[in-house]
């Protein structure tokens, strides 16, 4: 196995210039016209060539749901797995092959409902995976049931009288699972998506990216306040490491710490620029990121997007992987014979 850095630089070896075409398969895309997935696919395909990892060392793994189809459209290695299990399958790939760049594409039902356990454990272990969660707050492929991110009271085919469930906040969940990189972006905001993807690709360990994705068939408009031109400018709170958190058309609003110690949205003119909170994605303590995650429970008004958290912590079994690979290379017939003979043995001589 070649010892190659997967994120960013290709260990210094020159690569032919890659283009979007190198990452586009010959399969016809089959999402509904107007689906947010198209925009995400196009951005991913345009960012991948920049990363310096050739298609044959890139792997996409998905679960079940509309997002699951994603793998068929990128010309890399890929597995379209089973419902919820993509993080586990991808863990097997990433751990066995540290020379690969492994991406998981999942949805809100796939990652947070049936596969919740695998997601949190992949994040906890800090397996080197880029996990893209397409959150459309609905079950699309099964034709419109509420999902674990649908709002309470949501009326769907399976909840004609409104759902009783309290939804997950995916960013808070990932932070709770001790994810080392947590970000959020919005499908059609291609520049922002690309920026977040680049940061995710450069991260060592698990990178969790929630992408607000509009399902125009079963849940149209769920993200309108942060997605549609004309309103999003007022509502996207773009988090940038080391910068005061300001937003609004003219940057007229911001986030500051209130008298009760919690975060609140303020008018910059009233509090002054110095009162604004400076975003720190690299704080080892996740509490600030957690507060930001809860600044907006749902994307109905001002909502933070961007990188909430990006910290360094040991990547799962990185060192061990090298040792094992080396040990495996050395293991030979003689060593095996010695292993079989270990313990108390006795010999019966030929008569």
């Amino acid at each position, binding site marked *: 196995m070649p010892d190659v850095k997967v994120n960013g630089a290709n260990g210094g070896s020159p690569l032919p210039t890659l283009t979007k075409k190198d990452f586009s398969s010959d399969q016809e895309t089959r999402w509904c016209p107007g689906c947010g997935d198209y925009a995400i696919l196009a951005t991913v395909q345009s960012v991948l060539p920049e990363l310096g990892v050739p298609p044959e060392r890139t792997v996409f793994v998905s679960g079940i749901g509309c997002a699951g189809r994603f793998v068929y459209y990128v010309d890399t290695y890929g597995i*379209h797995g089973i419902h919820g299990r993509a993080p586990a399958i991808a863990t*097997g790939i990433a751990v066995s092959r540290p020379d690969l760049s492994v991406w998981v594409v999942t949805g809100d039902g796939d990652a947070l409902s049936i596969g919740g356990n695998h997601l949190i454990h992949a994040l906890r272990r800090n397996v080197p995976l880029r996990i893209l969660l397409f959150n459309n707050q609905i079950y699309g492929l099964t034709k419109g049931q509420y999902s674990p991110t649908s709002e309470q009271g949501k009326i769907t085919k399976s909840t004609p009288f409104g759902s009783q469930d309290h939804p997950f906040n995916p960013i808070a969940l990932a932070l709770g699972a001790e994810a080392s990189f947590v970000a959020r972006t919005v499908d059609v905001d291609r520049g922002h998506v690309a920026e977040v993807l680049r940061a995710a690709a450069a991260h060592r360990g698990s990178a969790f990216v929630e992408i607000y994705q509009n399902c125009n068939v079963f849940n149209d408009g769920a993200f309108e306040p942060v997605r549609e031109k004309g309103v999003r400018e007022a509502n996207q709170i773009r988090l940038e490491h080391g910068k005061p958190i300001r937003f609004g058309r003219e940057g007229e609003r911001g986030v500051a710490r209130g008298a009760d110690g919690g975060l609140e949205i303020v008018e910059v003119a009233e509090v002054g620029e110095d009162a604004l909170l400076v975003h720190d994605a690299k704080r080892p303590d996740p509490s600030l990121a957690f507060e930001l995650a809860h600044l907006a429970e749902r994307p109905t008004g001002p909502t933070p997007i961007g990188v909430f958290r990006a910290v360094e912590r040991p990547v799962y079994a990185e060192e061990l992987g090298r040792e094992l690979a080396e040990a495996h290379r050395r293991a*030979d017939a003689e060593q095996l014979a010695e292993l079989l003979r270990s313990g108390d*043995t006795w*010999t019966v001589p030929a008569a």
Partner: protein
Amino acid sequence: MTKDVKERERVVVRFAGDSGDGMQLVGSRFTDATAVLGNDLATLPDFPAEIRAPAGTLAGVSAFQIHFASRDILTPGDRPNVLVAMNPAALKANLGTLEKGGMLIVNEDSFGDNNLKKAGYERNPLEDGSLDDYQLVRVPMTTLTVRATEGIDGLMSKDAQRCKNLFALGLLSWMYGRPTDVSEEWIERKFAAKPAIKAANLAAFRAGYNFGETAELLGVHYEVKAAPAEPGTYRNVNGTTATALGLIAASVRSGLPLFLSSYPITPASELLHELSRHRRFGVRTMQAEDEIAAASIALGASFGGQLGVTSTSGPGLDLKAETIGLAVALELPLVIVDVQRAGPSTGMPTKTEQADLLMAMYGRHGESPLPVVAASTPAQCFEAAIEAVRIAVRYRTPVILLTDTFLANSSEPWRLPEVSELPEIDPAFATEHNTEGGFWPYKRDERLARPWAIPGTPGLQHRIGGLEKQDLTGNISYDPENHERMTRLRAAKVAKVAEDAPPIHVDRVEGAEVLVLGWGSTYGAIAAAVRRVRRGGGKVDQAHLHLLNPLPRDLGELVRSYRKVIVPELNMGQLVKVVRAEYLVDADSVTKVRGLPFFTAELEEAIRERL
């Protein structure tokens, strides 16, 4: 004083005590000494279900049985000739197994009122004549152990008492002339870091040995000569270790790094523990978050080009079914080791059963055939594991390897194979285009196996998934004809595995019209019972299956050639259903579902009744 020595052809000894008494340790030490002496042997540990049942209660009794002989033997023995009972509960729980007239050695120090009450004895059985049918030997083991360890620097009295199991080991070692150096060296190694404990254990062991030699209580000791065996180097091995070694050997032979991903479950956890120790061979073990992840991670490792293995027991196999189905569709190598235990549901986790056969064969939705291999004896787990890997790699398919609690825990001597004689396993990774200007992941070879192209191979990028695939290209397809073709291709591929299987070995006698057909861990009991039936003049043949799916190609002809086929199984009759359905043969079923292996005597009777 010299005592009489009597020769015995075979002996069954059962050590029983509280789970805190260290009976498994005594049993395995006695076993090692027995193995080194050259006796043939078979062992069976019997663990309590609870980890820490209250001391002194029946629920907390732990036992270890060993059968050793100067000829070849096949089972751990039905009834012990000697029972060592360390406390009243152990006596109560195990007395029923002791043969009438057998020797009963008890630690009389533990027969105080409190322990008697905990075991549910109203009167002391050592005093009330209820043990008159046995040769009762009362030994104050605790007292003698404490006395022997007096004066050892830094030894707590609690620790001194705990050495009484080594006293028992010493005593039995004397009774059967076991070599003492094997046990003493073990004690030296094991407690090298704790000088006081080491000294105490050595003292207790020697005190037990000397007690046998000098005490009036025991008039004779016994000799069991070495059993004739094929020339070679041997070691004693249980099914867990043999399975682990088989997987490692397959990894070395194939050049594929071994990646075991498992979730803790009794009794399969032992395999996880065993393989976790072998980093020297590049073995990676991963304790997954659940059974589903365990299978999925292993499958991911296979996609990455490693030898993905997941191990479990019944309830875990239920959970893995979906991932195994995906592996059937992806057509990737994956080995699933199912150490069967008594079900349904949680059932009896520490007890054996063979009731997962039909689940292994059919327990997935849709048409999803896969090869099933079953191990027949503890040492045979080694070959079975290699065979499972060979099939998985050659045919690009998940393979279920069935063992069970009995195989996992029992041990027997194993003649070590030459590494050069182990099967070759060639991963034969795809490295080049296999069609005009491209790569078709489902273009098959002559065995209908598809190419295994691993990430990192330039130009062979491909996407595969659980959705039905177009023949050859692997693209998604809902075409009715294609689905039927792919379904039949997958089945035909699995059927081809039978072409590699050697002819079924039949142990024949002249004029037999009855065949006893078994599979899995019942091999020893069936073979022993068949021998006894023959000794009584009965004419019966025996065959044992190692490949359960596909069934060997000569099985139909074989079962049709007998007037009667008897199928003993530790379930409600699973293989028998398959045999009846496949070959329209009126096979007769012998079943047992008590969480215990077959006893030779009961099988002998069952066969005799059906002759």
